[in-house]
């Protein structure tokens, strides 16, 4: 991304200098010597016009393709990236590791490991912005947005909230601590939490009574969840969606809007009973019930 940035800077300086120099040159060479001076009539030259339409257009197409290719590569995280769950709340960041560690406004990650952030917000639109990693993505209430980065140098980097979110928007900052793998393992051990996210998800799963309907053998009133995460689901009106985080979240909060063909819509909505973090824990638990890609637990 930086090469594109410096190329654009060069381009800007070149054209600005070109225009300024031409203007100064014309101003000095053709300054008005006497009031009665009549400059020759302007002759219009079509080829000149065509050229300064074509050249900027070509440059623009080239810039667009370069920028778009970088963006498309950055939009899809690699397989098996380390998963971190982020919940933005008015003026603080909650970060959860799959192993259960929970941090506020701080994130400890190992170096040279692709990290994928799954983010949602509990109130207004925030924005997870780490200038050092050239990365920014809005965090929306009611939806999951995800982005990924791979730290290359250990150190502590700024974390900002880039989308205006109210009074202490400028206080909603933090740091990303990139550590060598050994320090990271040591850090994990230092504040190992009692339960991993999947385990706390399982505890929630039983406490809320989900397991009365979603039985492993399929005899319950709800669909089997084992090994279902990520697979295709066909609704009653023929739409088929992938059972990803967003689908699971909508199924928990708003089951009536996802009618399944051979199940009666009896599932109650859990809106208001589960917080965003608990939903993430439930999703981690459902993922851990076997899916194509096991969450990486180092």
């Amino acid at each position, binding site marked *: 991304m930086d090469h594109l940035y410096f190329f654009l800077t060069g381009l800007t300086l070149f054209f600005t200098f070109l225009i300024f120099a031409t203007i100064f040159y014309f101003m000095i060479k053709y300054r008005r010597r006497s009031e009665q001076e009549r400059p020759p009539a302007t002759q219009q030259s079509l080829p000149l016009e065509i050229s300064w339409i074509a050249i900027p257009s070509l440059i623009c197409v080239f810039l667009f393709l370069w920028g778009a290719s970088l963006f498309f590569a950055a939009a*899809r995280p690699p*397989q098996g990236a380390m998963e971190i769950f982020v919940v933005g709340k008015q003026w603080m960041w909650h970060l959860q590791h799959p192993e259960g560690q929970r941090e506020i406004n701080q994130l400890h990650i190992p170096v040279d490991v692709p990290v994928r952030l799954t983010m949602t917000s509990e109130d207004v639109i925030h924005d997870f912005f780490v200038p050092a990693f050239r990365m920014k993505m809005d965090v929306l209430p009611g939806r999951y947005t995800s982005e990924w980065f791979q730290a290359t140098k250990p150190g502590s980097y700024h974390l900002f909230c880039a989308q205006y979110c109210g009074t202490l928007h400028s206080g909603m900052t933090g740091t990303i601590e990139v550590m060598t793998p050994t320090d990271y393992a040591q850090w994990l051990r230092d504040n190992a939490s009692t339960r991993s996210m999947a385990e706390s998800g399982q505890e929630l799963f039983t406490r809320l009574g989900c397991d009365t309907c979603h039985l492993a053998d399929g005899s319950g009133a709800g669909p089997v969840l084992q090994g279902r995460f990520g*697979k295709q689901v066909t609704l009653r009106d023929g739409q088929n969606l992938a059972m*990803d985080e967003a689908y699971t979240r909508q199924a928990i909060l708003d089951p009536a809007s996802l009618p399944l063909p051979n199940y009666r819509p009896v599932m109650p909505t859990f809106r208001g009973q589960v917080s965003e973090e608990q939903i993430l824990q439930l999703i981690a638990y459902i993922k851990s019930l076997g899916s*194509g890609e096991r969450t990486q637990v180092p």
Partner: protein
Amino acid sequence: MNTQDPSVGTYVFVFAVLLLLAALTTGIAYINLGPFNTVVALAIAAVKMCLVGLFFMHLWYSRGLARIVVLAGFFWLALMVSFTLADVFSRSWIKPPGP
């Protein structure tokens, strides 16, 4: 712009057709055409709009300028709707990773 004035006859005829189309819209609603219900209803609405527009609003008799403004209005309306829909419906195309 529209020197030529439509006769009363045209107004009455157009009004009758409009009433017929209105009845048609509600009538068709009671027949199960599956997804075509909406398509047909909107098509009839478009025909009614053209009738009102062309005859009652004298677009049929007026010069190009008013017509260009109407087309511009529809084009900008379509512009907003199409680009916003392009965003909303293509959000899930980018497959988040995983299985």
